[in-house]
């Protein structure tokens, strides 16, 4: 029954999202069957690889957001955190102070550190000055954009006649190779996929099995009860913001070491916001987030050819994605309330079967 409830809500949300997107297509006079025919077709082999790669990046972003969510912290700043961190990693990797994979490792550490520090600012503001992390992380996103653009100018190598500016490229020996999934396409799965798997397993383990994870969840479930139980809530806010930022720092690394090999003005942006949506969709569950990330990546990839095939903007799937998130939030709440009622009924039926050993209050008073 719990499983039915858990999967019922996202299924409901998907159906609603498809209906609403279809409605938009009808109103716009576009071919509904054409769009869904393309989106719901089987991807090409290259498409499969692209989906996995995009999902890897989405996954890291969503886990970063989910850590905050588990604590009732709304880290909207993953977007800024991963850009600051990717830039820091790109600079470190480009300078190549260490040889080979040692250089890669140092860059990863730099990314984690930079992401954590950027998020930590919001955490510190929250506990010392009471600034809502929603506000401060939005501001920090804007600040990150400006800061990275400024520093990029300082550190960028001369792009020659091109308008594109970027950091020094990561040396060949420090790049992370991919896996070949299909022999008929040169596109490879990011080697950093392993990083996402490790992060997912670690996230699930820490949240569910450790004392720290218990404190984190307890604080998210009821701050008042957490305080009474002896949890230092302020410390938890700072630590979980640091952790969230540290994971956010990893978001851009598959791109940096597996595809772009430098941080430039064309580096993919907006991943942090997709992460918020996917974390919501996946209910902060390590496995649920993975499904959500794959779904979002699938929609992105399948919508790409729409422009060429049907002259319809692929942005139509953004409507689908947005509606999924909106409807899933509603559906989860409906299912949650239903679940509570179900459980209360279950408790009362289970207890009505046994004879009450103590008189209930009404009888005593009568």
């Amino acid at each position, binding site marked *: 029954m719990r499983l039915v409830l858990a999967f019922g809500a996202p299924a409901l949300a998907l159906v609603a999202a498809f209906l609403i997107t279809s409605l938009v297509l009808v109103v716009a006079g576009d071919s509904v069957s054409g769009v869904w025919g393309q989106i719901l077709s089987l991807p090409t082999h290259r498409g499969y690889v692209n989906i996995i790669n995009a999902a890897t990046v989405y996954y890291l972003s969503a886990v970063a957001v989910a850590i905050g969510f588990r604590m009732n912290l709304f880290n909207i700043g993953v977007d800024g955190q991963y850009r600051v961190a990717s830039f820091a990693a790109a600079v470190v990797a480009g300078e190549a102070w260490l040889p080979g994979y040692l250089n890669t490792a140092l860059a990863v550490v730099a990314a984690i550190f930079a992401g954590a520090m950027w998020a930590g600012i919001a955490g510190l503001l929250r506990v010392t000055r009471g600034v809502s992390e929603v506000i401060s992380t939005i501001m920090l996103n804007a600040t990150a954009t400006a800061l990275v653009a400024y520093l990029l100018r300082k550190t960028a190598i001369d792009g020659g006649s091109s308008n594109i500016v970027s950091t020094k490229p990561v040396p060949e020996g420090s790049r992370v190779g991919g896996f070949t999934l299909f022999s008929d396409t040169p596109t490879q799965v990011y080697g950093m996929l392993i990083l996402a798997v490790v992060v997912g397993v670690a996230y699930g383990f820490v949240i*569910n*099995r*450790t*004392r*720290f*994870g*218990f*404190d984190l*969840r*307890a604080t998210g*479930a*009821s701050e*008042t*009860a957490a*305080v*009474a*139980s*002896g*949890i*230092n809530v302020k410390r938890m806010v700072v630590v979980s913001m640091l952790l969230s930022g540290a994971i956010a720092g990893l978001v851009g690394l598959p791109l940096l070491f597996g595809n772009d090999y430098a941080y430039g003005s064309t580096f993919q942006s907006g991943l942090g916001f997709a992460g918020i949506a996917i974390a919501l969709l996946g209910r902060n569950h390590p496995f649920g987030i993975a499904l959500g990330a794959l779904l979002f990546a699938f929609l992105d990839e399948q919508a790409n050819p729409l422009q060429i095939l049907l002259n319809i903007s692929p942005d139509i799937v953004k409507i689908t994605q947005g509606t999924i998130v909106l409807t899933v939030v509603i559906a989860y709440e409906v299912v949650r309330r239903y679940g*509570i009622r179900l*459980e*209360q009924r*279950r*408790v009362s039926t*289970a*207890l009505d079967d*046994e004879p*009450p*050993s*103590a*008189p*209930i*209050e*009404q009888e*005593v*008073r009568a």
Partner: protein
Amino acid sequence: MRELSSSTAHSSLADDIVVRLRDIGKTFPGVVANHDVNIDVRRGTVHAVVGENGAGKSTLMKILYGVQKPDSGTIEVNGRQVSLSSPADAIAAGVGMVFQHFMLADNLTVLENVVLGAEKLHGIGGAARTKILELSDGYSLGVEPDVLVEELGVGARQRVEILKVLYRGASIIILDEPTAVLVPQEVDELFGNLRELKAEGLAVIFISHKLDEVLSVADEVTVIRRGATVDTVRADSVNSRQLAEMMVGSELPTPHTEESTVTERIVLQVRDLHLGSAGGRDLLSEIDLVIRSGEVLGIAGVEGNGQAELVESIMGMRPGATGHMELGGVDIAGMSTRQRREAGVGYIPEDRQRHGLLLDAPLWENRVLGHQTRKPNVSGPLIDRAGARKDTERIVREYDVRTPGIDTAAGALSGGNQQKLIVGREMAGNPILLIAAHPTRGVDVGAQAAIWEHIKRARREGLAVLLISADLDELIGLSDTIRVILRGHLGQEFDPATVTPQMLGSAMTGADA
């Protein structure tokens, strides 16, 4: 004290009943808020509803104002049976409510605030202004329609709220703890206004736990205890001691029959505990107390005199608290809440749903809460699921927690079973000091007896127990020593063997001081 029911006709009390509540019952998951509530409110009277916090006054008034629907019982307004499913229904029936926390927009004028949401009645312009001035003069409220609300003091804001209710045509006005926010002069003004209202034939329902105020303004008083009406009496036929006694109960289910187990060994010693507040008045000052092994120290007091602050200061949840505190000879004043718990403090919080439980989490996770650094819940940095689950099974068995299983969410249990789980959990930590704040509030009688038994057992086992309760019978029945807290000061000490609820009642209200 049943004068009212026997005195059929009293000249000062008009006999037409405008509100008649019969057998009202309301249950929330985990709490029985009201049952068997019967109240008659007469036209042209101020009818006070008194009871300790948590006795069910607010829920009852929400039912009468249409915010909550009762599970059982009937409501009659002006002789007609009504079903109130929203405040709009209540207003249509002539019932209005002034909440404790005002619902006014600061940046709008009085006129704008009054007409907001009631634009259809007299428009928003001249007609509305005329009506407001007419009401203000008619009831001597002294409200000026064009002043910004942010420029008004608390008393004036309250009068605006009353006017809002009158403007919407209410003839029955509920005031929820109206004096809690007022200084004494403002209280006198308010009472003057209330007398005007009743002189004009309106009925005022006045919720309070301040007995002296109730007696000075009310015509009739209904006492609520543990969610049920105890009795309705005429205000001029009782004194505050008698009311206090009715509020906290006079049935003694378990008198103090056991032998004293008090030893000489001091477990908790608090000296010169002090807690300031942003508002200036100290929440706690010069608190000195000692609890010995095997001793139950009961704290009596009217709600809001520093009980919650005292408990939270001892638990380390109030960063501003200063003073000296020793637990079993160890200085705990500088310790965090977790360190104090580890040092041997068990804590049964006043509000179990907010401070004691994670309502959406299963029982076994709630077993871990507050004990997440100790065996059998953890091994090293990891949660020991098997250990925690096994011990939860034991608590469920030994403390008679009625539940289908330990994976049930805590929020689905009844209040008594939630509390038994908390008691079992706190005793599992092998505490040397048990702090129990209102341990039987909102629980059924069966669970109440069980919880009392557990506290007595803790005392026999040599724990020091700090017991806070609004139920004087509970205090007298369980305590070895009773002290009264009044305005943040810990005062007189009483021997429960000789003290009466009346003596405590007057010490609590400061009547004897």
